[in-house]
């Protein structure tokens, strides 16, 4: 096997991620006769030792509180505002309903205002062009508008 492939396997071997005994034996046999790979393995072991000596930090005393303030407690605060104004949602819903009714009413008024004009124009057309009206109603209505 090529040394480049052996070196890749040695990276797994040093992490205890090669469990097959035949591959382990193959690597051991290769290391016994290849000084380059032996040197590589030694340097890899040293690196693992250095990284194992890595000291990490501990969380600060207030980190947990900071997180809670921005998550659970923040939501609770929002709930608290709802507690102060418990009917807020009811009022906003009622306001929307009133606005909708007013809008519908104004539309209906507009339609009501239109209808007498239509009737007037239509009546005028009937009296002035009674004969024609009998013949072609659509033309009379059109002439009343234009």
């Amino acid at each position, binding site marked *: 096997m090529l040394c480049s492939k052996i070196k890749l396997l040695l*990276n797994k071997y040093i*992490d205890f991620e090669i469990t097959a005994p035949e591959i382990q034996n193959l690597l051991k046999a290769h290391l016994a006769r290849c000084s380059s790979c032996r040197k590589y393995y030694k340097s890899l072991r*040293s*690196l693992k030792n250095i990284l*194992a000596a890595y000291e990490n930090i501990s*969380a600060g005393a207030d980190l*947990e509180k900071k*997180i809670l303030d921005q998550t*659970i407690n923040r939501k609770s605060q929002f709930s608290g505002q709802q507690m102060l104004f418990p009917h807020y949602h009811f009022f906003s819903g009622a306001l929307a309903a009133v606005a909708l009714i007013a809008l519908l009413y104004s539309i209906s008024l507009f339609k009501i205002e239109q209808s007498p004009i239509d009737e007037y124009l239509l009546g005028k057309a009937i009296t002035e062009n009674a004969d024609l009206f009998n013949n072609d109603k659509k033309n009379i209505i059109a002439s009343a508008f234009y």
Partner: protein
Amino acid sequence: MPDTVFLNLLKTDKNQAFRHLMKEYQNRVLHIAFPFTGNSADAEDITQEVFIKIFNNIEKFRGMSKLSTWIYRITVNTCKNFTMRTKKTVPLNCNIPAALNISEDNGIRDVLHEAISRLPFNFKSVIILKDIEGKTRNEISEILKCRPGTVDSRLFRARNLLKKKLKLVFRPEEIYAMQ
């Protein structure tokens, strides 16, 4: 707490589930964020950001992957965003000896920080997850959403690069003394 128990708790009491998760993973998230950033203040900021994301999306966790994998993935992505925001990563072909700021007072941690912080993001993430956090290759491939073969090659190259950097700082006898 097993993931299934956590999921049941999540269904009944979200806040309690989150508190439990925070207690269990707070230090683990911090331990990933710290080598990424190199300073404790930034690491704590990232940890906060991670838990806010977790809290806002906790209902989306359905147990399709391990809870730890899900949390680590969020952490690595948040660290990636942080790196992109701050642009602290130095290109691979940088002048390593001149770039390392090592004084006699620096401990191993400072030296390692300096060396790890100068790795490209993909190399840094595999080194941190494998050699500092002790995750398996399969777990890392799930966290980073890449193939195990990709993890292998990244780890191989990352270790080679890191060795080169550290060789300039530590004498062989110092390294052997750590064994």
